[in-house]
């Protein structure tokens, strides 16, 4: 336990320079994009005058020099404030807070789905390596791997919403239905299925192939032979001895995928009009609303750091030989 705490403390110290670098680089990098929030807002507005443009820039604080804007942003951060989005006319933390649960739910569901199905498929493939079942699953995995997520999403909508009418075509819940309790949960689940599946498919393919490969790798190891020689059943050997070790690379890759899933969420959230963080980030880029974007980037980097710590701990648990430094 003391070991775990020490690790956590050390990671926290290491996270600080990372976060500072993220903030500084992002802040000045974003300013390289042509145009500012006033331009973007005026674009939406369709007509503007010198006076309204000047008023917008003053309102957004864009009339200040970049360095002054940076200092005031750092000042906000030191007060644990992510600043104010003039475009949305509300604090960035509230804006992100509204969207974060949606994205976390989508990510968690998709990642769980991907791990569950991917690992199962990988185990099945390795058990039947080279035979028909393996071949068929391989082709399906290849398909999931190569077809873009937005297209899968749209095809799922066409099939399950437009043609069959089984599932809603988008959104996170039935709006204005005022549901509570079980019907509410069921409604949320129905809305979650298609986006989570479209987000998960790519990762199912990766985990399936990864697990298959590592299972085949450990299959011929001495300890597996020993286990079989002990007279353990094939299932026990596969699950207890082989899979346990094959999970190590999966945890490493899945940890790295948290960032990728956050990126993939932009596309899925767009296709399914899912009110999440990815979509907010995308809109913030288009609208040059950098206070929102910086907030999301900061939060995402913290999220990735946290997940990496979790993966470290998880691996140490899976394989005690891995020392926590």
């Amino acid at each position, binding site marked *: 336990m003391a070991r775990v705490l020490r690790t956590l403390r050390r990671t926290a110290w290491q996270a600080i320079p990372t976060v500072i670098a993220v903030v500084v680089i992002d802040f000045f990098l974003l300013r390289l*994009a*042509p*145009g*500012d929030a006033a*331009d*973007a*807002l*005026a*674009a*939406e*507005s*369709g*007509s*503007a*005058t*010198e*006076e*309204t*443009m000047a*008023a917008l820039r003053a*309102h957004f604080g864009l009339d200040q020099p970049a360095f002054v804007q940076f200092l005031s942003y750092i000042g906000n951060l030191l007060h644990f404030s992510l600043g104010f989005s*003039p*475009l*949305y*006319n*509300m604090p960035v933390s509230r*804006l992100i807070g*509204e*969207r974060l649960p*949606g994205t976390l739910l989508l990510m968690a569901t998709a990642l769980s789905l991907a791990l569950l199905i991917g690992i199962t498929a990988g185990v099945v493939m390795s058990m039947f390596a080279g035979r028909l079942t393996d071949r068929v699953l391989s082709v399906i995995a290849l398909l999931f791997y190569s077809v873009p997520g*937005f297209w899968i999403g*749209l095809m799922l*909508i*066409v099939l399950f*919403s*437009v043609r069959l*009418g089984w599932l*809603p*075509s*988008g*959104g*996170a819940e039935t*709006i*204005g239905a005022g549901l509570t309790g079980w019907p509410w949960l069921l409604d949320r689940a129905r809305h979650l299925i298609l986006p989570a599946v479209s987000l998960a498919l790519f990762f199912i393919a990766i985990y399936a192939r990864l697990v298959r490969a590592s299972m085949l790798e450990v299959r011929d190891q001495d300890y597996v032979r020993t286990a079989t020689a002990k007279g353990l059943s094939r299932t026990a050997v596969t699950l207890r001895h082989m899979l346990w070790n094959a999970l190590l690379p999966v945890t490493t890759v899945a940890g790295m995928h948290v960032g990728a899933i956050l990126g993939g969420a932009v596309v899925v*959230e*767009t*296709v*399914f*009009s*899912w*009110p*999440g963080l990815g*979509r*907010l980030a995308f*809109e913030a880029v*288009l*609208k*040059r609303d950098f206070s929102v974007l910086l907030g999301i980037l900061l939060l995402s980097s913290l999220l990735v750091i946290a997940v990496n710590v979790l993966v470290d701990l998880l691996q140490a648990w899976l394989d005690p030989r891995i020392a926590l430094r």
Partner: protein
Amino acid sequence: MTLTRRQTVVGLGMVSAAGARAATPRQGGTLTLMIEPEPTSLVCFNTTGGPIIAVSSKVTEGLLTYDFDLTPRPELATEWQISEDNLRYTFRLRPGVKWHDGGEFTSADVAFSIALAKQSHPRGRNTFSNVTEISTPDKLTAVLVLSHPAPYLLYALAGGETPIVPRHIYEGTQADANPNNNAPIGTGPYRFREWVRGSHAVYVRNPDYWDKPRPYIDTLVVRFIPDASARVAALETGDVDLAAEIPLSELARLGSLPTLGIEYRGFEYTPGTTRIEFNLDHPALRDLRVRQAIAYAINRKVVLQTAWYGYGLEAPSPVSPLLPKFYDASVESYPFDLAKAERLLDEAGYKRGPDGVRLRLTHDYFPYGDGYRRVADYLKPALAKIGIAVTIRSQDFAAWLKRIYTDRDFEFTNHVMTNVFDPTVGLQRYFHSAGYRKSVPFTNAAHYSNPEVDRLLEAAAVEADPQRRHDQLDAFQQIVSRDLPGVNLVSVRQSTVYNRRVVDFTTGATGISGNLAGVYLTS
């Protein structure tokens, strides 16, 4: 006789068929309207952005509303009078109107809102620039006093253009940051309930609306669906009842579905003209003959059919043919003529090089929807025929604006000029030499300057006599079409895709961007 269920249904069907509109509208139900992109605010006093206008109007109304031919009709004003000298506008306001928080609507709100529009609205600054005084002799009378006539003023009073906001909420605050912008209070048929960013906004029926028994529906849901294909799917599944931003490539198929229909009316308040705009400071494009050659090399019919799927009208003049009151059809239209185009380029001294190229130009299309990119895709081969090699450059919206209006680092672009309801309000900024102002979007990016055009536009802005004003605006269209700071292409016909269970959603010039007070559902 006992009526069977079947007979009853048939009988009802006959009744409703016979008296379709005369029948009492059905009360109740939830209507889902789709708007794209998601608005950044829910009140449009400081913006002309389409999505914001569309949501704003459901809560925040205007003094007037307009028929399809732009004839004014009463909304919050019941009567209006314009003095003989056109310098005094007197509005009688509707009595007994309440704000959603229970406060009384009075002339003080009108005076405050018009002053706010004059100060904060991108077009209102010009629309109300001649207004020197707004007086409120009594609670239900508002008088605008003008220094010069403003012939367009009476047409700028729709809820989406000059919204009447509650003075008691905005007074003494910084209007741009007022919380009311995100949770509005108004006089309109729908009360704001919630706004879940990235997903939807919910409005509920205002039981105290001044035009009882309207509104008929209980709940109005406004959904934001960013992906175009998902928007189409949502219409097909019935998740969405009304939508305007639908890909043109899908319109015909959607219209042929039994549950859906297409309405082309309801956009008369905001017609526009798509066009090419030249940078007149570019050495080659400064030469009128080069611009004429480009104009002759473009076939508007093909642009209309390929880039806009035939939805629209060919538009040779800056004034849209969809604004018939001011459109001059007799302007020089540069009919498609490649030989003439080549001759003009020869005369201008741009001979074909060994690779057949006379001139290389870069084109920046307007990054909004797919239509302008398709126009660019047409221009490249079309201009290659006369020896102009075009490089197409893509960028996002904010980058395009900065390039065209702030940096002016462009050669030619294709975009849309919104005419709105009057050329003075919509077009003057594009052609008056004073409209050449760096870093202000949608202005005179060409750097076009013709003193005669300036004079005509200025005269038309204060001309009270309709016939004289008409002549001035005709002369303006003639000169601009000869000077060719841009080539006008097509007026795109906008449309609303609707579920057939929705009735009376388009009853005037603002269509589904109006207040939707009269809309009802048949099932």
